């Protein structure tokens, strides 16, 4: 049955997240960007909301709620409305933990998940993106060659979120042992921070989302045991993992777009030129109405992909639609946001230039940055 109706519980979560995003994330965003530092207390406050633990099994200390990609998409939209960089930093541990919860063996869940159910922010992350202009998630250059029952990982990763502090990395690589190609050959490996052969770069300097610490990884014959292959012998459902990250990325872009729109509306009503508010001129009014049309469109695409993930269906197509559409439209919206503010859109006193940089950054990641 086609339904656009969130559950009562989801409405409550959206409201709570919106409040947190507005009061905590938005308030911290500018300073965090200027100093290129993610404020620890903000991460801890986000952790206290149970972003990660709520949907982990209660037997392992989690909240025992069903894993809900739809709820998570709503949550990411609201958090990104506050600030996309801080939203990703706050949810990076979920990236790792949810991948383990969804694809891991019982042993892996027992070993790794309790750390995400504690009271202290626990940093862990996924390493997927590679430093090549022809990066293709279905054709990875990082390879896992089998050796003595385990694997040897070689390759390079970049844009690894929270990599400066993560205790574990989930390194996504092509299984050199696989006769298959594409998604079927993709596996993920749990690599501890102190693994021999792993070099972690200093924090990368990026165009946007400067508050978000990202690093590059150099894997030089990093040896992992068989039980560190996520999902054990069965491996992972890589298409599902990619669909999840794409959907999540689209949700972040949606939240960012809404932030721009909701900032521009009062600005355009307040700013006057030639005797009336600039919002009273169709050139500006229609730019704003277009933002409304496109943020709505993005949201339904995100919800559709998330709902297919939730129901266990193949969400590949819906996730590609959501992420590619959101990437295009969010960039346009952020671009127009700068234009609506004119000179003020270029000044760092207003957040719009920050969103403009963030949109360009986030929209090239095509769903790689968050779960």
């Amino acid at each position, binding site marked *: *049955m*086609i*339904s*656009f*109706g*969130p*559950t009562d519980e*989801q409405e409550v979560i959206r409201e709570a997240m919106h409040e947190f995003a507005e009061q905590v994330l938005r308030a911290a965003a500018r300073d965090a960007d200027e100093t290129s530092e993610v404020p620890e207390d903000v991460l801890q406050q986000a952790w206290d909301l149970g972003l990660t633990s709520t949907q982990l099994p209660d037997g392992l200390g989690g909240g025992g709620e069903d894993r809900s990609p*739809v709820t998570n998409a709503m949550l990411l939209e609201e958090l990104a409305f506050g600030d996309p960089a801080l939203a990703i930093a706050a949810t990076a541990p979920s990236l790792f933990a949810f991948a383990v919860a969804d694809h891991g063996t019982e042993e892996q869940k027992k070993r790794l998940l309790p750390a995400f159910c504690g009271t202290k922010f626990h940093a862990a992350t996924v390493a997927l993106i590679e430093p090549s*202009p*022809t*990066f*293709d*998630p*279905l*054709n990875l250059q990082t390879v896992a060659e089998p050796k003595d029952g385990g694997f040897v990982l070689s390759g390079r990763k970049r844009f690894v979120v929270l990599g400066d502090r993560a205790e574990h990395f989930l390194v996504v690589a092509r299984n050199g042992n696989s006769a298959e190609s*594409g*998604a079927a050959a993709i596996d993920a490996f749990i690599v501890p921070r102190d693994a021999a052969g792993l070099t972690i770069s200093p924090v990368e300097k990026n165009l946007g989302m400067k508050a978000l610490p990202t690093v590059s990884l150099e894997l030089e014959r990093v040896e992992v045991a068989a039980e560190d292959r996520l999902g054990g012998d069965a491996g992972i459902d890589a*298409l599902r993992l*990619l669909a999840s990250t794409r959907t999540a990325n689209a949700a972040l872009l949606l939240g960012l777009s809404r932030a721009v729109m909701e900032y521009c*509306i009062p600005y*355009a*009503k307040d700013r006057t030129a030639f005797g009336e*508010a600039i*919002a*009273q001129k*169709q050139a500006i*009014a*229609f730019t*704003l*109405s*277009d933002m*409304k*049309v496109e943020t*709505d*469109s*993005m949201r*339904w*695409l995100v*919800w*559709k992909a*998330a*709902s*297919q993930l939730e*129901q266990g*269906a193949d969400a*590949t*197509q*819906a996730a*590609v*639609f*959501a992420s*590619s*559409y959101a990437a*295009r439209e969010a960039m346009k919206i952020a671009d127009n946001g700068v234009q609506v503010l004119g000179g003020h859109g270029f000044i760092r006193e207003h957040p719009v230039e920050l969103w403009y940089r963030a949109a360009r950054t986030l929209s090239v990641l*095509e769903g790689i940055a968050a779960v």
Partner: protein
Amino acid sequence: MIDFTLSENDKKLLDYVRTESLVARKYAREYDENEEGFPPDALPEADQYPGVWSLMGGRGAEDTGASAIGMMVTMAETWGDYSIRMRKGRGVGLGNAALSAAGTDEQKEKFGGLLLSMAITEPGCGSDPSLVQTTAVLDEETDEWVINGEKIFVTTGCRCDGVVLWATLDKSAGRAGIKSFLVEKETPGFIVAHKEKKLGIRADDTAAYVFQDCRIPRGNLLGGKEEIPKQGSGGFRGVMKTFNMTRPMTAAFGLGMSQAALDFTREQLEEAGVDLSYGAGTHGLSAAAAKFQELEALQEAAVLTVLRAAWLSDQGQPNNLEASISKAKGGSAVRTITQGCIELLGPMAISREHLLEKWFRDVRITDIYEGTGQIQHLIIARTILDYGRAELN
């Protein structure tokens, strides 16, 4: 709960409509080329098909709501052809919707059995109906309204039995002076001037009317309220409300056709060996595949705005804003999609041997009738800015 799956009943219904639509499509080219002719009220094959309404009964709680599934049925119908459907009979017109929304019981009784078109647009007035020049003057001696004026772009205007027409009682009263009148065909002074010649939807019956001292009974004023409201335009607003379902529906008309264009384009590209599978990164896609996926995503986005507007209506919630969003989005999406499909297929696409060039022409009306894209943006902008007509015009 957020859900985008279709129930078994939903699927059965849509499968049925698509089967029917393919039969209707066989006639698409013939009536496009023969613009003077009219497709029959019922196709020769009609007896072999029970009709979509026979499947609409017995729907349960697990099935998609009536408005939302109605939009999907509409898309599946125009996917076959916009103008030619597997009608069981003559169907209903936009005037019938106005009659059931605003007519008195007596009027519904008297005119309900007729096929009624709706005449609003005039040679000098389209998006701003307050400029209506057609007049209705009461002749108190005979208790008749005397109608004078011209109407154009009247959908089902040739085949209908009568029309609901907008005329003004008092031009100086602006929008408040506009009333709707029921006029039956064959009334002296009601002249069907011609069938319009159009870019697309050529098989569609679109008429131009002239009214010359056309006299109708006093009781034919729709809703029966003769007085002109002094302040504001309350009555007018009531009329505009009927657009809340017709706007998403109009978008759905166009999106059925753009889906047909996408399906045809996919078939042709795949036959030519272009890989259109999903999931690879930007560099794993050919330029054609990337472009095609962009168009598909646009189609999906527009369809979802239509379903969202309809879903709100099914929930009994206001959907004025969402109706305009779906119309603005749908109207612009179908243009981009059909233009893009032609670009993707190149020279073969412009041949009248295929229907793609027809869909390209047919969808173009989507962003114009039932409120242009610009009018929808005006409504959306006013809503999000909390402006009235005085602030944003």
